[in-house]
């Protein structure tokens, strides 16, 4: 090949040729990196396009009307089948809700805090809900009364058939004013 007896820094070549070579190197590097990085981008963003986890959209049995219709909230754990990436698991906890009766209506409030997603607790003495993480308080209707929570507690759909109560469990975007399912 082009054997030259030159100074080490290779400056003896003319600048145009040198630029061409550098361009070639740059192009080749980009192409070779693209072989991996292109698919990598598709691979890593896969969850944006295709859901990787899913619970059940159906109403989940939550208990009996008789037990649940009191004005003291009861925490109900909800079990459903769940798909988690490569797994399909049957009858696992997917979440929970505070259930109570308000003005003759059965209400279910998600225990997920609308602020940053901690678990909301109930204070029996004060008769109010509290999120212990950053001290958000909610009244028995789930209304945000104090603290950083941007909105009221998220109500879940309730279905009552004879004595059987069922709840549709959903998760909502956190930190936003509006309640939007994710």
């Amino acid at each position, binding site marked *: *090949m*082009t*054997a*030259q*007896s*030159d100074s*080490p*820094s*290779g400056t003896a*070549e003319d600048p145009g040729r*040198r630029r061409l*070579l*550098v361009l*070639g*190197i740059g192009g*080749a*590097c980009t*192409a*070779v990196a693209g*072989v*991996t*990085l292109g*698919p*990598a981008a*598709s*691979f*890593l963003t*896969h969850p944006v*396009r*295709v859901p990787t986890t899913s619970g059940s959209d159906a109403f989940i049995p939550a208990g009996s009307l008789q037990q649940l219709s009191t004005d003291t909230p009861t925490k109900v754990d909800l079990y459903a089948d769940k*798909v*988690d*990436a*490569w*797994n*399909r*698991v*049957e009858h696992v906890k997917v979440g929970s809700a505070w259930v109570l009766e308000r003005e003759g209506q059965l209400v279910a409030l998600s225990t997920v805090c609308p602020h940053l997603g901690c678990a909301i607790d109930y204070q029996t003495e004060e008769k109010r809900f509290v999120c212990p993480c950053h001290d958000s308080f909610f009244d028995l209707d789930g209304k945000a009364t104090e603290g950083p929570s941007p909105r009221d507690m998220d109500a879940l759909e309730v279905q009552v058939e004879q004595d059987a109560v069922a709840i549709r469990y959903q998760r909502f975007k956190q930190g936003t004013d509006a309640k939007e399912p994710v």
Partner: protein
Amino acid sequence: MWDWLDERTGLVSIWRGFADHVVPRGPSLKGVLPAILVYLLVQQMVLGLLLATHYAPSATDAWASTAYIQDRVSAGWFIRGLHHHATSAMILVILAYLGQLAITGAFAKPREFVWISTLGLLLVTMVLGVTGNVLPWDDQGYWAIQVELGIMEQTPGGGMLRTVVQGGNDVGNLTLTRMYAIHALVLPALAIAMVAGIVVLGRRAQRAETSGPRPHPGVAFFPSQMLMDMIGIVLVAVALVGVTVSTNGSELFAPADPTSTFQARPEWYFLPLFQLRMYFEGPLEPIATMLIPGLVGGFIVLAPFLAARGGNLGRFGVLGGLGLVAAGAVALTAISIQKDADNESYVESMDKARKDAERARGFAKEGVVPEGGPAVFYNDPDYKVRKLYEEHCQTCHELDGFGGVEAPTFTNYRDRTWMSELIRNPNEDKFFGKTEIDDMDPYDAEALPDDKLEAVVEYLVQLSGSGEEVDATLAEQGKALFIDELDCNGCHEVEPGVDGGGPNMHGHGSAPWVARVIRDSAQPDLYGSDAKMPKFADKLTDDEISDLARFVVARRGVTADPVPPPVEGEKAKGDEPEADAPEGEEPEADGAEGDAADGDDEGAGDGEDDGKADDVDADADAKAEDPPPPPPPADDEAG
């Protein structure tokens, strides 16, 4: 700006040192192999990292997560395939480089350690292949690691070594976590060290050439030689992508199953050792697995030093020796490949393995239950039916040794032997003995000699309309016996729907008929009011009932019902629409195969072009590999 940065970091000086390095004799494609190794190593690490973002190293999750990568995540098959094939590419390039070093004599002073680093890289890469092969925890990985651990056990103190490496007395979670840690953390570090050794020591030797008392002329590495390097790299990359796409990535077999009969084969780079072992049986085995590899490996490592002694004679002697080793390795590889190609049992078992893999991966798309691994087959419709059977039928109907003997057995249900035995003695416990159905008298050999019994049974098989092959003449004799001589039809009518004292024989034993029995066995043209079997019409869905019926019928190997089923009760009972509807849509009671086909995406990897499974121990003997490049596909821009 650059000065500013350089004062604080020295980065610019480092780049200068790298770029201005003088390459003796100017830029050349002959010098690109180390750069290709750098490229492959970096790419492997990136791909490995990507795979690690989706892979779970546990015995229950490894296969499921790999199948997820392979068949569900976009570009997953490509990333996994590229990672797989790049190991082969790396070995080829290493072999090519070793060949180049030996043939050009460049392994001599001062490059002995370049030679040794390259050998080290070969060893590390092979172990990377072995450990990586285990990670998917498919049949391939499972059986390969068994053999490898077995070989390890033959070494002195190997028993303990095996326990440590495998993490217990059997392979499992701890084996996988160990393999994963070694593959993903330890070996890459070693590989980096080896590649760095090759590059840095190689450059050191070049500097000696260009700066000595009689310096060779040269030219700066950047940009001329680097462009050469990039050309080599691009060629290898193109070849790799081509191979990956044309083989649909890397194969993934069915999940590790200790009861399978998978015929594990090592990756192609272990075939010489694999084949060598064939010639040493029993106590001689360590000769092939340890002694020969050890001696040959030692010779290869010492080759540059040996070549330096004894002048030209020594040099050619060593070269000849290396050539011999290479030729031997190529020959052994060829023999091994040829043998497998000629081996029908192997070809067949691989076919079966690929079909199993396809089914398993099809089922995996529905999600794998947490038991993991072979539990993916729980998604098999046949499996679901079996569960249904266990739940609802097995308490009374024994099957293959399991279950109660309260009602007729379903072991080989209604095959010819079953029928004959029933006619000989219907009141036996395994037939109707424990039921309230007792109207039929036994026919012993005197009342009904064997040959006549055979004819009657043949006729009944014909009547069932189950699609089994029937000897028509025999059935004709049977018909005469049944209707005239024995007057069976006094109780067992043969016209569709007509009820006699006992079950109507038209369609008796076919899937639609069994479905009717499951719905309500007490119908007049079935078993009548003596039948105490629960009515399942309300307990199970129509699909479940016809699945169960097909399952029961399949006990005698009948898989289809091409003949129309009995017309349901024109006179018996008009109330059930059942029986026939669902037939025919599914060709087989265990119709799994059909649905499994995951043809949709790139899935079914069948890269047969590179051997699979490492059979042979990696570490101790891998050194024994051949140095000069045997000529397999792709990347040999080397020479």
